């Protein structure tokens, strides 16, 4: 009965993995896409665990089973490369192939682990599922910005932009950019930490100078423009720094 159920779940998983070949123009957000990957992995893992349910309780002398069970989740995680950015996503056949890879490595993780020692496959399968769900939390996903909180706080604190360089700047957005990229060194309110305090920075640099500094900082301050910050981000964060008193 368990074996039969295992085959049925495996067949359903393969069908589900083949779906990209027929999906047309449907686009999923990355987070949802990761969760769909997780469904494939859960299906493949459950089927393998059911199919190996009567494996003997012994340690296999073939170490290869253990290695396969450990390496397969790492390869599966690589296959979870956020596909909105990946060339694989542009080619449905390749995308389908990637999903089949997930099914294969999800199956192998459980099957090989159980062949090595009953219970190891279960542990490694849980590990792989956890990786898939963790991926949905932040792999290829931008941080969720609490816009309403930051905007409300900014409205109370923000001063008007002081120079032409930041005349069109969005101070609230600058505060968010600051929180994500600068606060770890300069402190949550620019009070200083590992990096210097930015309070009253407007008395030391005008907005144009602040922008120039952020774009081309001296070490050890990291250069985040243009790899992480856009020109608008730099302008906005400079405007926010000008408001720090």
């Amino acid at each position, binding site marked *: 009965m368990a074996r039969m159920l295992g085959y049925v779940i495996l067949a359903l998983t393969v069908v589900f993995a083949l779906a990209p070949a027929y999906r047309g123009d449907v686009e999923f957000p990355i987070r949802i896409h990761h969760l769909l990957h997780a469904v494939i992995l859960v299906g493949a893992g459950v089927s393998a665990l059911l199919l190996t349910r009567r494996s*003997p*309780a*012994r*340690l296999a*002398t073939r*170490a290869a089973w*253990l*290695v396969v*069970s*450990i*390496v397969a*989740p*790492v390869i599966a*995680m*690589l296959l979870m*490369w*956020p596909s909105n*950015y*990946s060339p694989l996503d542009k080619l449905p056949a390749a995308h389908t192939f990637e999903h089949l890879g997930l099914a294969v490595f999800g199956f192998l993780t459980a099957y090989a*682990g159980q062949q*090595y*020692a*009953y*219970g*190891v496959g*279960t*542990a*490694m399968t849980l*590990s792989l599922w*956890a*990786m898939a769900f*963790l*991926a949905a*939390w*932040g*792999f*290829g*996903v*931008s*941080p969720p910005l609490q816009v309403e909180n930051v905007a409300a706080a900014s409205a109370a604190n923000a001063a008007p932009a002081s120079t032409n360089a930041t005349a069109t700047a969005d101070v609230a957005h600058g505060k968010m950019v600051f*929180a*994500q*990229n600068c606060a*770890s060194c300069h402190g*949550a309110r620019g009070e200083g*930490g*590992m990096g210097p305090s930015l309070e009253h920075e407007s008395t030391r640099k005008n907005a144009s100078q602040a922008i120039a500094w952020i774009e081309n*900082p001296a*070490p*050890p*301050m*990291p*250069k*985040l423009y243009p*790899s*992480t910050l856009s020109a608008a981000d730099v302008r906005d964060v400079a405007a926010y720094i000008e408001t720090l008193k």
Partner: protein
Amino acid sequence: MSAITIDIGASAPPSALDLRRARAVMWTYISTGLAIFFLMMLVGIAMRAEQAGWITYDPGWFYALLSLHGIGMITAMAIAGLGTLWYLVRREAAIDPRIAYLAYGFFVAGVLCVIISVLPGKFGSLWTMLYPLPFVGAYWPSWATGVWLIGNALVMIGFMIWCAQILGALLVRYGGITGMLGIDYVFNTRAFQTTHAEPPPQMFAAAITAIDGIIGSTFGLAVGVGMLVHWVDPSVAIDPLWAKNLIYQFGHTFANLTMYMAVAGVYVGLPLCTKREYHTSKPLVVAWWGTLLFVIIAYFHHLYMDFAQAESVQFIGEIASYLAAIPVVVVTVFSGAMLVHRSGMRWSLGSVFLYAGMIGWVVGGTAAVLDATIPVNLDLHNTLWVPGHFHTYLLQGVLLFTIGWAFVNLEQRSGERSSLFTRWLAGTGIFGGAALFLISFYIAGANGVPRRYAVEPGVGPQYAGIATIGALILLCGLVVAGIEAYRLARLAKAGTAENV
């Protein structure tokens, strides 16, 4: 998992040849771990001397060395501890040395990658490699980041292999997860004892290391692969808070587990010294359950200053920090002290190190628990107090347990004990040097000197000077112990004691 039967062959006592092979595995791990430890100590001395103003070099090199020292020390202690624990498991259950060597190969390859990324590459975003720092560093090229990430991934894969092997061995040996974790023993003792032997204390250390190690490596590999992908394709976004949570989950768990790996040496070594048995007891088993459950979420205490983190998890981190450490420390140290009390034990380097290690564990653990307390952490976060506590934990806990077990093993097999002069020389160097070295961290930290500064403000340089002197004395003590270990090892080779 719990319904399986025990393979009698797996629980049969190992032959003399098996034990010799297993000892070879253990010494390969321990000697490699201690060799890396020695090199990392030199790196640490170079950093403290620079902070003291005795030598000068580019701050970029300081952060590169800090990165190497941080990850190198934890990995060194882990390799030594894993070797010890592997051998102690092998005495109880059948496991294949080839898999242990395979895991070792991954460790060595990972360490080499890390060294390459730091020495020619000057990678300097520390072991915490907080996103996006590894990718925007001003001092190192992109390839160094990639090699660093690959090195970390190799270490994690090696650790995962080790953990899975031990997990499999314990599942088979003790009849599934409930037998292995002592659940059957606690809730149905009589029935359990008719079918299975109770797991000895060191098996709980092995079980917790294996399970929490797999959980930690899961988090580590998830973020490690994510960052590798970002390195290849920078357009793939990474959530910085996600990355920080996962990195610290792995890092804190891995670092914490080094103690639980090494403490297995106490469970086996002290009984050999006192000629008394260290019994498994229900409080001991329950205390280990606390560690099993809470060590994986204690890491939240590293993120107290992350205001974007949900407030509830900060409190979870505080409580988990207490529950992960306090019960197992109390039970182990109390029962260890009782084992020694009126046992007539003769003090040797092995027994001194094991006993002193318990004291170091208490001191380092207390400092850690203080730092995990939120109101205290508000003052001590990112001061030198933090390295103070984990240096105590590692130097006076993990290291002493590791070399203590190594000495007990050599002393038992050689039938020799070090001379009083050697014991005083090694002991004075190791304890005196460590005291000087560690106290400077605590006092400077309490005075608000920040950690991770190439150039320290305030009283920092003065205490860095004291720390450098302490570290040099400690180094001399360790060299004396190393020479003595070599002498005992030569005698042990000719010895006939095969069951240690």
